[in-house]
């Protein structure tokens, strides 16, 4: 649960101002972007996600480097992605 995982925003929700769809290693899920106060995010931006909330905006190079690293750590990341797949935030 302590991993911060990078995701790319693919769409902002039209029904709920704080929600956005992100793509994390090919998995698309809704996350809450309400903690990124004042920082404008939109499709194509990368964010660091923790338990369903975007914690900070990061640049694409950082996101890719972090993903490479996470994909290499094995089980802890697999568990995180498995949990994310189950997630149905709305």
């Amino acid at each position, binding site marked *: *649960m302590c991993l911060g995982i990078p995701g790319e925003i693919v769409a902002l929700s039209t029904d709920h101002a704080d929600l956005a769809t992100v793509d994390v290693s090919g998995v698309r899920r809704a996350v809450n972007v309400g*903690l990124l106060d004042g920082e404008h995010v939109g499709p194509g931006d990368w964010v660091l996600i*923790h*338990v369903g*909330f975007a914690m*900070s905006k990061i640049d694409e190079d950082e996101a890719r*480097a972090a993903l490479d690293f996470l994909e290499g750590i094995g089980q802890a990341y697999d568990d995180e992605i498995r949990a*994310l797949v*189950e997630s149905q*935030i709305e």
Partner: protein
Amino acid sequence: MRFVDEFRDADKARALAAAIASLCEPGRHYKFMEVCGGHTHTIYKHGIDDYLPENVSLVHGPGCPVCVIPMGRVDDAIAIATQPDVIMTTFGDMMRVPGGQGSFFDAKAAGADIRMVYSPLDSLKIARQHPDKRVVFMAIGFETTAPSTAMTVLRAAAEGIENFSIFCNHVTIIPAIKAILDSPDLRLDGFIGPGHVSTVIGCRPYDFIARQHDKPLVCAGFEPLDILQSVHMILCQLAEGRAEVENQYSRVVPWDGNAKALQVIAEVMELRPYFEWRGLGFISQSALKVRDAYAPFDAERIFELPGVRVADPKACQCGEVLKGVIKPWECKVFGTACTPETPIGTCMVSSEGACAAYYNFGRFTRERVRTATRQ
């Protein structure tokens, strides 16, 4: 040094290792604490210890939120989970954490409705779907996770979801570091500061470590190179006679933290006068509880809790591990009675716990490095 090749930038790693070695004063021993369990995981996974000179040692700190939940709180959570019409929801990491009366897994096997969720918002969704049930979220974590819980409570309040509450076990990192600095067991020379906690609290709250305790702290990222670079930054400070807070992870951690996240925590939660940490005992003002204004969402007020303090098992040395006094393999039950499948202590449960990280990678890494250096 073939083994550095697996680093993303092997040349940089080699150069850093050499620079680190050249900064160490001969005959001086350096002890740095990595506060965060995520760092512990990287250190064991990549065998960072083996790239450092012998007189630099890394000791693990208390920054694994699963590891610090005391037995009594697990029992309280299970007491809630076994009430009629309750659905208890929790992060997967909590499932195996042993309490005095077993773990969530045991309670689930005995019939309690306990579900793993990815996010507190998933828990809120379960509450929406089951208006006839009382849905409780077992909230754990440092300042990284507390804003998410707080946002979820605000959402529940805004939507008027009355069957949702949180069992709040959020802890705060600064008092734990203070407790360690005040502990006579350990002489530390510097700190590798937690990365993700700092995205929320920023770098300023660590100032007292530099000013009052005269020790450097460097907020660090989670990749092997980040850790080597942070060790290098700490050693530079020591060599130059400085003690400052520096930010190695500025690509993610803003110096001032996340104001919105701090504001939502403060809206929903306040400090408890004291809280028990597994292995560390009671630490004052070290944890959060739900404010009166959000009392209807506070499981501690809704349910009757046993609230009994349960002493850690005698064999367990998690306290010493969490304070960095001993290494995981020095615990008498490590790898024998205590394994990730049958944990006695919490440090063996989460992948960020020092014992689990060492159990999973440590011996393997040592073996690999030995082979690599022979070639």
